[in-house]
């Protein structure tokens, strides 16, 4: 299956392991990602927090570029996914808005393409398709799947149930891991508040880590670079400020899936995280 690929601005920096592992695991599963030439930033939370019209227009340019390729678009980052999918939704729902935005971007978007998160794309391949390619099942690994906000809200773009999604669980189970039921899979990690007001975001991160840890998880899997950064990098700060001792590695679901598909851990960026991932990875080797 061919898809227009939207890497998002974190692809070379904070979200590098996600991009790497998505491309590699996708390749193993028969997904061909063709990068959208000349894509621009979706605006992220700064965009829609400043102007809804600006956010829609920034996203719309990318939608039009993908549409010209004749392909559906996929994005690994949950935030990019949500911005692009919401813009598509709004542009299809409102013909006046579409005309206005087409004038603003200088590209005509007709609405003949879909926006899909990588999570959804992989899940849509089906358990059998994935299982047939698993060469190294993730036995002995207990995972807490964390979705955060942007993949499951709002309703117009949700990829799964907003309170108890199961998509990532199904993929991880096919990959051989034990998936746990837990309470915080769609709680907010604080998003960019963690960057500009970290004191406000720490309790949110701490709550998620506590719940994952109480569930008995060896690690958390996620599908968003910002969630990843908040849960992984900020874990040390949570421990320091709140006197806790969490040591919970945080992976992208594409990384663990990649391991199960037989990809070499180093190529998946598994050792580039902040929390030491080695003890947990030993469980599966």
């Amino acid at each position, binding site marked *: 299956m061919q898809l227009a690929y939207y890497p998002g601005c974190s692809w070379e*920096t904070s979200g590098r392991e996600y991009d790497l592992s998505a491309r590699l695991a996708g390749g193993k599963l028969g997904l061909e990602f063709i990068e959208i030439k000349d894509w621009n*930033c979706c605006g992220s939370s700064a*965009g829609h*927090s400043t102007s*809804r019209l600006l956010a829609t227009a920034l996203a719309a340019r990318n939608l039009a570029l993908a549409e010209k390729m004749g392909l559906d678009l996929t994005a690994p980052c949950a935030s990019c996914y949500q911005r692009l999918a919401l813009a598509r939704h709004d542009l299809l729902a409102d013909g006046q808005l579409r005309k206005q935005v087409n004038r603003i971007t200088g590209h005509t978007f007709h609405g003949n393409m879909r926006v899909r998160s990588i999570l959804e794309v992989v899940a849509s391949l089906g358990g059998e398709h994935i299982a047939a390619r698993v060469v190294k099942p993730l036995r002995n690994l207990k995972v807490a799947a964390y979705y955060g906000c942007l993949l499951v809200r709002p309703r117009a773009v949700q990829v799964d149930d907003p309170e108890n999604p199961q998509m990532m669980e199904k993929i991880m189970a096919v990959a051989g891991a034990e998936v746990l039921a837990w309470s915080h899979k769609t709680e907010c990690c604080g998003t960019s*508040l963690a960057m*500009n007001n*970290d004191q406000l975001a720490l*309790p*949110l991160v701490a709550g998620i880590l506590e719940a994952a840890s109480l569930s008995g998880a060896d690690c958390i899997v996620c599908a968003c670079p910002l969630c990843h950064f908040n849960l992984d990098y900020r874990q040390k700060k949570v421990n320091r400020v709140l006197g806790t001792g969490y040591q919970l590695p945080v992976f992208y679901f594409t990384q663990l899936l990649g391991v199960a598909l037989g990809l070499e851990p180093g190529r998946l960026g598994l050792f580039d995280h902040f929390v030491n991932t080695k003890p947990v990875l030993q469980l599966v080797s």
Partner: protein
Amino acid sequence: MNLSAPSNRECLIALVNNESGQQVEKCYQCGKCTAGCPVSYAFDLMPNQVIRLIQLGMKEQVLSCRSIWLCASCAVCTARCPRNIDLAAVMDSLRGMARREGVAATGRGHNVFLFNKNFLQSIKKYGRLFELATMLSFNLKSGRPFREADAGLAMLQRGKLKFSVTRTRGQAEVARIFERVAAVESGAGKCN
């Protein structure tokens, strides 16, 4: 008194509804949005109060509150509202209105405002986000130059820090998008 002119109250409701695509009149103050909001503990006005004040036409109180800036856009309120109001979209619209009307964000809200501004400047300039430059400039302007310096160092060690950004060739087009949106918005409505 001009009885045919819309009252301040009607004007504010119409403006917010038009911007956000919602109908704030539908809110019946059940408080479910507030119950689920992860940041309400730091808000000065609870999410349901924000909606109520719009219904009452209290523009100044709404646009000057800290909550609109600290809102994390998590959309829990939106997903759970029994009246189907997209409160996260309303919060977006209020931030946009505050900016256009020159109502300054204060305290922690000001950090959010600065952060967003820096972020968008990067996009306007490069077409994409230049993470490093954006964080450094935000740190300087918000008066904490060494904020998250340890993150920067750790990222550097992992080869995750880029000292340049891959400019998109569409950069000129992106800059034009900013200009055209600004031109449209300069004609956007206001209320007293």
